[in-house]
């Protein structure tokens, strides 16, 4: 699917990102991502950052099935979007991606500060011990998920 500039900016902004996958028994797994980058290697791809220890079973499930869903939501406006792909794989971080994670945490802290969450809270929420990896996936489907009548509509 196409990712236009406006959408790329949304995905890489101070949005909350949750990831879902599943195992062979179709039991779902869940993790929070620590930022996202959109890269263009031919097709547009998402690189979703997670701490290996914190993501737990989701990493195993992605390895085994290649299936992933990433849901992006702006806490202050509830604008929500979900992208899905079936070719997900675990890759090491690229050299500039630690800085990208740091920028993400700062943006997210700025986003939820008006809701009463301190920077200290946000930093604890995203703290990890340097064991981060990137889940790389080509999004094949996208859905509008902002609460309301158009929730569930497929993105072009």
């Amino acid at each position, binding site marked *: 699917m196409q990712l236009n500039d406006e959408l790329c900016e949304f995905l890489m902004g101070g949005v*909350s990102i*949750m*990831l*879902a*996958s*599943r195992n062979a028994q*179709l*039991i*779902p*797994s*869940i*993790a*929070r991502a620590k930022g996202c980058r959109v890269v263009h290697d031919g097709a547009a791809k998402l690189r979703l950052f997670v*701490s290996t*220890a*914190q993501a*737990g079973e989701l990493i195993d499930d992605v390895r085994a*099935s290649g*299936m*992933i*869903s*990433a*849901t992006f*939501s702006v806490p202050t406006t*509830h604008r*929500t979007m*979900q992208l*899905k792909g079936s070719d997900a794989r675990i890759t090491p971080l690229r050299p500039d991606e630690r800085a990208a994670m740091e920028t993400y945490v700062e943006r997210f802290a700025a986003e939820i500060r008006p809701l009463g969450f301190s920077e*200290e*809270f*946000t930093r*604890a*929420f995203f*703290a*990890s*011990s340097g*064991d981060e990896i990137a889940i790389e996936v080509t999004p094949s489907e996208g*859905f509008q*998920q902002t*609460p*309301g009548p158009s*929730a*569930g509509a497929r993105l072009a």
Partner: protein
Amino acid sequence: MTRVTLDAIRHCLDGQIPGVIATCSRTGVPNGSYVSQVHYVDPLHVALSFQFFNKTRENVLENPVATIMVVDPDTAARYRVQAHYLRTEVAGPVFENMKAKLAGIASQTGMSGVFKLRGADIYRVTSVTAVANQTELPTPPRRSLLAAVRALAHSIQQSSELDELLNRTLAELEAQLGVRHAMIHWLDESGERLYLIASRGYSQSGVGSEIQLGQGVIGVAASARTSIRITHTTSEYTYSRAARESVRDTQLADRLEAELPAPGLSAPGSQLAAPIVARDRLLGVLYVEDAADSQFGYDEEDALVTIAQHLGLAAYMLEHSGEPDARKPHRAPRSSEPSGRAMAIRHYRADDTIFVDDAYLIKGVAGAILWKLLHTLVAEGRSEFTNRELRLDPTLGLPDLSSNLEARLILLKRRLAERCPELAIESTGRGRFRLRAARPVKLLDAD
């Protein structure tokens, strides 16, 4: 992977940070979604708010396994809750509680009109685990609610009369739990309305103000017989609105009553109501509120429910401990004879409404009681009464439950103190009282 119990993390289920849920279709496509409300039902069950027909719902109907992640709003710790979808409830205590809470969340997040509860999806929890290797902020110190409830329970059970029991409960709620705004409503004889019988922390006591069952937090707590807790401001459930809506299209007497100043914070951030029940009979509702958001959590809800149950049993015990006591009435203090201009007291038979010198005073059962007392005072010159004679008086038509009469007398006594201090009801011992008139009275009966 650290296993924890669901009740140990239920403060994470209060909507400050929305939970997220992962599900999977039968064909193996995972789906992620944000959840407005993950509600703690009991140590083995949670309920999720069902607001829209969406992919999550479609998935759990065909593959009933879900993994939910919730966040501790104090420590930032995350927990994975694995759960199995069981059923959807569209009525009953869990549904009503979630509906009221969702209205609060919707109003706080600008989603009023968008968020509407269609059902409570009940899930059985199969495991709860803390996210590995995470960083947690220290837990803020909390007071011991059990110690507070213990002290309160000890104090209120010493009460020898309903009036004292209610006042002590409100005073101890403030002293032991720091609750500064509280009300107690009693169920009326019809079983369809509640009237305010005691309050604390308001500029107007509001005693006598009425609420229809099902209206607002208090009315819903009564009709659904469940505690209702709202953690964020919402206009839908405020007291003033409930009281206003309770009198639409009703009798003149009800409208007169509704024009009296009602208590209640104009914009409560936190609200909590618990039914007062004794042996399956609903007696009333205990309600507390606070101007700030998120003041009452699951633990405070448990504390208030326990207090309301203790209060209910204490009221029940008073009702069944016999009346009046063998002690002699308190000696009547030397009272001055009525003097000055006579008060014109007008009684309207249709709804027992009473006006004093053209100002509305009271209506209904309390009005009928006052009229009866005044009649006896004028006709027989008797000012000493027992609860028992009123309870057995066929003209008053009271149900044979002493708590109903006692509650009406409390209402009458407070209303007189606030709006007609020339008439007063004074206790002269358990189950006995005196009607004192500072001025002569002239009784006028009207249709």
